[in-house]
């Protein structure tokens, strides 16, 4: 029965097909419709294989991939996100540089140490007695 039905269907379609024809007018209508849809796209197959067209997409894809790789490298390179904190410049040479115990990594402005302050003359060094006003009125003892 199945083979009979197969044969029946094939025969049915073959007989029916003999009565359907696409006339010249119909074919022209289809051709015109296609031409109106995409007038610039027709031509022989050879036109597709022009080198410029063939390489356009791979070149663009390569350029895009390279750009993505560069961007990723810049963003995720080790240390790129946490750069070293700025270190202070070496303080200018001073006559009496005081040793400092501060960590070099801490960005601090150089604090003048005690040695850099203006020394106060002491009595033992100068040997000169300091003038002390004994009284407000000169000549009075």
């Amino acid at each position, binding site marked *: 029965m199945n083979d009979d039905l197969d044969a029946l269907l094939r025969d049915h*379609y073959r007989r029916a097909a003999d009565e359907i024809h696409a006339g010249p007018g119909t*074919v022209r209508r289809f051709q015109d419709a296609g031409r109106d*849809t995409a007038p610039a796209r027709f031509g022989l197959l050879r036109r597709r294989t022009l080198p410029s067209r063939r390489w356009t997409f791979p070149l663009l894809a390569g350029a895009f991939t390279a750009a993505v790789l560069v961007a990723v490298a810049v963003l995720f390179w080790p240390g790129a996100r946490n750069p070293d904190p700025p270190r202070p410049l070496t303080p200018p040479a001073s006559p009496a540089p005081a040793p400092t115990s501060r960590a070099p990594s801490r960005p601090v402005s150089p604090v003048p140490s005690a040695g850099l302050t203006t020394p106060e003359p002491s009595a033992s060094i100068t040997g000169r007695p300091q003038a002390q006003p004994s009284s407000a009125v000169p000549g009075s003892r």
Partner: protein
Amino acid sequence: MSAAEVRGAEITFDDFVTATAGRLLRTAVFLVYDRYLAEDLLQIAYERVARRWRRLADGDPEAYARKVLVNLAIDENRRRTRRPGTPSGSAADLERLAEASSGAPQVPMPARGDLDEVLRALPAKQRAVIVLRYWCDLSEQEIAETLGISRGTVKSHTARAMAALRERMGDEHMREGRA
């Protein structure tokens, strides 16, 4: 020009249409059972082929055109099933309805008969599977690719369609036997 000659040959779109219009028009008519609608659907299919001609030219443009055509026919059949008796919306459809109502001669159907009635009554996809298999001589795999379904689904559609045909044809034979 046969389908094999069309495939892979360096042809222009016009040559392609000339070579395939007859075959594809018959396929369209078997799918929708309406000559005017078949021509409209085939025109849409050719327009889509034309848009992609450069990409399709070295492959199998006829297979692509058939795929578009079959899927358009399935959509159209579904639309008509949902809204039977309503015009499809195009000017050609309205003209066709006017002709039918005025009694003007219609384009004759390719083959009128019991088998046609049974085939016309099948659901859209089942009918498409039958047409692709018995008219276009496609394999199950090719039918699956054309319809965008799995081979298993093709098998089940075929089995259901054949069961319906067998049932209807068996009824006809029984009626003929009784008479």
